[in-house]
């Protein structure tokens, strides 16, 4: 009795929180996206699709394309870095593993904004890396590190890497190594073992990690602003400008709804692939 009341309370309060701070504001966003802009009252209560018409402009599509490329690049780099790392992490003795996992998580105790500023201190023309290289005589002129595409990717991958490592670690950890021994006994090459056994079995981790990196990367605009010099506009910048600079709430809302739809699409793909991993194929045997 007491337990069920506690259960109802905890579920109820969480739901209430989500309804007040997520659902209701989002309903407003959807509503505003169908209204008309008004210079005096912000929005006029007249239905229109003009907000959506405006985001079909070539400029917004360029903004989206660039944001998607950036998020995709970040996901691919994170995966390439995190997969081998997670793989070797699993094979380490327990004591080392715990320390390394802890080291992975500790940076989270600091705000990502501060960690981005720390990267600026590393990369700037008179920063730590350039000062060191100049001092050793490897270079004569400071390298151009800050405000480059590379700096943006380093910043994004650095911030989001743990989101890739942790799901990969979990799914590699669950891997049944006897399957690999069996495959080897039956004469499979290393390449075969990786692509036919390890990769399919760890696919849920890859999909989960990629989703957890890709979606935040799509929305993070302060890292490209700080490390890339704000020379390109991302979806996040675009939405912010619509609300704050021009006071064009319908277009800003329409762009937000569009972004949410993209994210839903990716979550749906994630949902489909994770269901497939649970219902069929090798997943059950592991």
């Amino acid at each position, binding site marked *: 009795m007491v337990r069920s009341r506690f259960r109802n309370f905890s579920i109820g309060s969480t739901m209430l929180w989500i309804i007040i701070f997520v659902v209701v504001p989002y309903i407003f966003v959807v509503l505003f996206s169908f209204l008309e802009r008004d*210079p*005096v009252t*912000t929005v006029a209560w007249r239905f229109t699709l003009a907000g959506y018409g405006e985001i079909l402009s070539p*400029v*917004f599509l*360029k*903004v989206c394309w*660039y944001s998607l490329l950036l998020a995709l690049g970040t996901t691919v780099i994170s995966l390439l870095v995190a997969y081998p790392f997670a793989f070797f992490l699993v094979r380490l003795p327990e004591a080392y593993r715990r320390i390394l996992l802890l080291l992975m998580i500790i940076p989270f105790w600091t705000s990502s904004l501060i960690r981005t500023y720390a990267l*600026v201190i590393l990369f*700037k*023309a*008179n*920063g730590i890396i350039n000062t060191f290289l100049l001092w050793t005589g490897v270079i004569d002129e*400071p390298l*151009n590190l*800050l*405000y480059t595409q590379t700096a943006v990717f380093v910043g994004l991958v650095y911030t989001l890497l743990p989101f890739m490592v942790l799901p990969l670690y979990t799914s590699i950890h669950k891997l049944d190594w006897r399957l690999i021994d069996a495959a080897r006994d039956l004469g499979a090459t290393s390449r075969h073992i990786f692509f036919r056994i390890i990769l399919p079995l760890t696919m849920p981790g890859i999909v989960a990690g990629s989703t957890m990196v890709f979606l935040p990367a799509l929305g993070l605009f302060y890292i490209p*602003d700080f490390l890339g*010099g*704000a*020379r*390109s*506009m991302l979806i996040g*910048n*675009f939405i912010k*400008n619509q*609300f*704050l*600079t*021009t*006071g*064009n709430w319908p277009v800003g809302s329409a762009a937000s709804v569009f972004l949410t739809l993209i994210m839903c699409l990716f979550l749906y793909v994630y949902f489909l692939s994770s269901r497939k991993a649970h219902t069929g194929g090798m997943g059950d045997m592991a």
Partner: protein
Amino acid sequence: MRRLLVVLVLVLLPVLAFGAKQEVYVFNWTEYIDPGVIKQFEQETGIKVRYSTYDSNEAMFAKLKLVKKAGYDVAFPSTYYVERMRKLNLIQPLDKAKIPNMKHINPSLLNKPYDPGNAYSIPYMWGSSAIGVNSKYVDPKGITSWNDLWNPKYKGKVLLMDDVREVFAMSLRSMGYSGNTTDSAQIRKAYEKLLKLRPNVKVFNSDSPRQPFLNNEVVIGQIWGGEVYQANQENRDIKLIYPKEGAIFWADNMVIPGSARNVGLAYKFIDFLCRPEVAKKNCEYIGYATTNLKAQQMLDARTKNHKAVYPDDAEMKRGEFQSDVGEAIMTYEKYWEMLKTQ
């Protein structure tokens, strides 16, 4: 039920206890007042200051627009927002008789087009944006005009503000137009000219433009006068040059919103901030130029004579304060998006 009552009383008690006290609701930019000044006001008058902050005019504007009554008593919009809020009746006309200390405000900062006769606002802090150079790499004597930023030898070495109005005002003025134009043909020309500047631009930054200068990432670009003063505490090579086409001036102004709870207390607070000793304290704490002439004279010699912070009258006449462009902001933003997606 009884437990609920106890909880209610506990929650309401502080409200009841403070309810009797007079309170003034102040809405200001972050880090834009010396906390000691608030304490001094509270001790002198017994009025409690309820202080909240914002980080952009837009955020302040959106909030004031939503509050219909019992809102903030004092706010600090920038010039073009004073104009905008005045047009929308969001702020009320000031009764100057209730602000005797207004006589200390620098007359050359009063009666500007954004608020003729200062009917609605009194300038609080002000400053300029002009050309910053690192004199170690660029000879300041060779730089006289905004057009110098377009010089191909500064490829990848220029800083622009990350602010649509500042960047367009610079480009417009370099062609002899007003930075407050609403003529879409002129805005388009400014955009076309900015496209040619893009290869030179290394970074857009308006939060703290001195940092890329101090980091040796850029050698020339737009910068706030106050930022040059702050940069000079670390590096004396960063210099400010007022271009011959004129600098762009900004000011943040004290206003009383139409939805104020307690207009009388608002006047008391504004008058207190116009007191020279108080203005001096704020100016020293914040680091921007004070609008208070008496306070300026009380500052140390290096600060009050620093030309980057306090331009002379000739520069003041040549420059221009930002004012509201109304619906033309949509045109500006359209070209800004195109500039940023090139």
